[in-house]
């Protein structure tokens, strides 16, 4: 298979010089997160409180969704419900058409990414501009975000410079981030002025207040929301918290976990539309009811999309977000992806060493490694299998179940010529692209522990 994580990550590691730099850039976020963690006395309790709040909210999700809708409507918002990605796309397009909007400024939303909103709107003749700088960069390059918080983290500034030169006519070769960001700022200002409508994602929905909360560092969501007459917020239905008291817990955790900031620069609470403005909230399911229905996996719906599990993941850091070939990459992405296609995403739960670092940084304490382990069991059952792996495992398990077979296999193993064990036929041995060896097989000792024990201990 071509597009598997194993192959794509190999390309990233051996086909580019980015892996160390990418690794360090993300580790920098993890290190900043650790510093923020240390500023909070009760950090671990804050995490367990957050997990308990999410579990509580999920256990009463139908009621909270209704409370949220009622309150939002009272505040003057219009609430829509989308069963799946298709319905989200259609509702959005309809709102835009009904309000004669042709162009849209959009702030970051992994949900709309997941639902393929941009390509659909473009195909329907709308103009869509992503206004988060990182998202704008990947949009101009016709790529997808490689990280849910820092979408262009797979790119070096020289690549951004080339893209901007080509699309926005910036100075060739000028890769100063200050310069590039200032050009983008000017260009986006024009887009903000020109657009007819604004679309945002949602970080939190506050049921008792009927408000949606959006967190950004650039302020781009607000630039659109407060200047357009048609505003749409797209919210995954797991984003709810009961009230302000609970919201406090999450605004303390989100940015600290995500980028190691004490809070995002802007935490915007939208409750009532401005006069003469229509403001819409679309509550989106898109398979969340499937995740919800599975008692083992329901905890994955606690996720607040902070990205901490990606930043800490030793595999993600070295393999790049695109190697996960799913909208959300990294540990949580690999937990969610099979819900969106078991066959095509069956490799992802295996793209992990199950080291458990993600569990420990996750602000809502999702047992990510445990869920990946569960998926592995399910996927080998429910999808087509890699025959060589399966047969290997079958033979192995038969040998390891019987002492006779095991002893026999052990002696045969000792007969295998050293040359063969050290050759490329042994998948343990890895060659690097430059021909050097990457990993070799250990020297096989003359006797096993059991053989030694038999000789030396049993008689004594």
């Amino acid at each position: 298979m071509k597009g598997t994580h194993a192959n794509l990550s190999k390309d990233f590691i051996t086909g580019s010089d980015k892996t160390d730099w990418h690794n360090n850039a993300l580790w920098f976020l993890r290190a900043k997160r650790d510093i923020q963690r240390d500023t909070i006395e009760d950090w671990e309790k804050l995490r367990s409180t957050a997990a308990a709040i999410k579990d509580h909210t999920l256990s009463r999700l139908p009621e909270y969704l209704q409370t949220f809708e009622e309150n939002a409507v009272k505040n003057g918002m219009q609430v829509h419900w989308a069963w799946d990605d298709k319905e989200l796309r259609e509702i959005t397009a309809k709102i835009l058409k009904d309000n004669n909007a042709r162009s849209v400024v959009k702030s970051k939303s992994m949900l709309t990414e997941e639902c393929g909103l941009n390509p659909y709107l473009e195909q329907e003749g709308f103009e869509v501009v992503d206004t988060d700088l990182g998202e704008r960069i990947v949009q101009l390059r016709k790529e997808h975000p490689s990280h849910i918080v820092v979408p262009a983290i797979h790119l070096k500034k020289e690549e951004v410079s080339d893209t901007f030169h080509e699309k926005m006519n910036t100075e060739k070769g000028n890769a100063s981030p200050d310069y590039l960001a200032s050009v983008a700022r000017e260009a986006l200002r024009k887009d903000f002025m020109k657009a007819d409508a604004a679309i945002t994602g949602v970080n939190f929905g506050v049921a008792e207040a009927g408000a949606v909360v959006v967190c950004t560092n650039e302020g781009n969501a607000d630039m659109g929301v407060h200047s357009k007459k048609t505003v749409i917020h797209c919210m995954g239905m797991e984003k709810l918290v009961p009230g302000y008291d609970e919201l406090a817990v999450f605004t303390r955790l989100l940015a600290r976990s995500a980028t190691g900031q004490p809070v995002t620069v802007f935490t915007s609470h939208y409750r009532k539309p401005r006069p003469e403005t229509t403001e819409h909230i679309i509550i989106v399911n898109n398979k969340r009811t499937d995740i919800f229905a599975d008692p083992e996996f329901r905890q994955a719906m606690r996720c607040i999309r902070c990205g901490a599990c990606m930043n800490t993941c030793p595999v993600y850091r070295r393999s790049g977000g695109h190697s996960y070939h799913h909208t959300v990459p990294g540990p949580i992405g690999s937990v969610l992806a099979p819900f969106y296609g078991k066959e095509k995403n069956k490799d992802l739960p295996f793209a992990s060493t199950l080291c458990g670092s993600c569990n420990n940084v996750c602000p809502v304490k999702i047992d990510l490694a445990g869920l990946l382990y569960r998926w592995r069991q399910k996927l080998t059952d429910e999808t087509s299998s890699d025959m060589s792996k399966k047969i290997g495992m079958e033979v192995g398990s038969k040998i390891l179940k019987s002492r006779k077979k095991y002893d026999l296999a052990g002696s045969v193993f000792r007969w295998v010529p050293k040359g063969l064990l050290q050759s490329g036929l042994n998948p343990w041995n890895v060659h690097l692209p430059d021909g050097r060896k990457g990993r070799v097989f250990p020297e096989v000792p003359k006797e096993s522990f059991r053989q030694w024990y038999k000789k030396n201990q049993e008689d004594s």
Partner: protein
Amino acid sequence: MDSKERILSSLKNVVGEPLPRPEINLQYKTEALTEIFIGVAEASGTEVFLATGDTVAETIETWSKGGNIQSSVPALQKKYPLVFDEQVPFEKDKMPGIFVTEASFGVAENAALWLTDHELSSRLLAFIPERIIVLLKADTLVPTMHEAYENIGAEPPFGFGLFMAGASKTADIEQTLVKGAQGAKELAVILY
């Protein structure tokens, strides 16, 4: 069945026993709030000035070095009238170069300032000017977001509410911090 019913009924079929709403009971520092606030604000690039009621205007003048100042603070509106017009938000002549507002309270742990329609008068004013000055009474500081949201719950409901914790910034190009990504390039807080 429409999608709302479909979603709710699929959830209801599998939801199980409701879990209790957890108590939120956390420990943190409740003293030295001004020091904490200043430390955090400065670390995120916000300039903080200490003033008294009488020296606020002077501090505004010194920091802004002239320029087109507009304010939503009633006491300052005579001096710095607000000519911004929401109907033509991107009109250069109407846009303040420097916008002065007052937060209803601040949060020590993250240097966030709470601003609503009431303080801003126009929502976009928190985002569109190049430079922003926020006045903050030192005795309104609360330790953490927990007290902050308690305050918010006790105030009359807002239409738009914002925690602002610095100037607009991005690190989307190679993790290099750039100030003034889209909104204000500089933020100053005058604590009095």
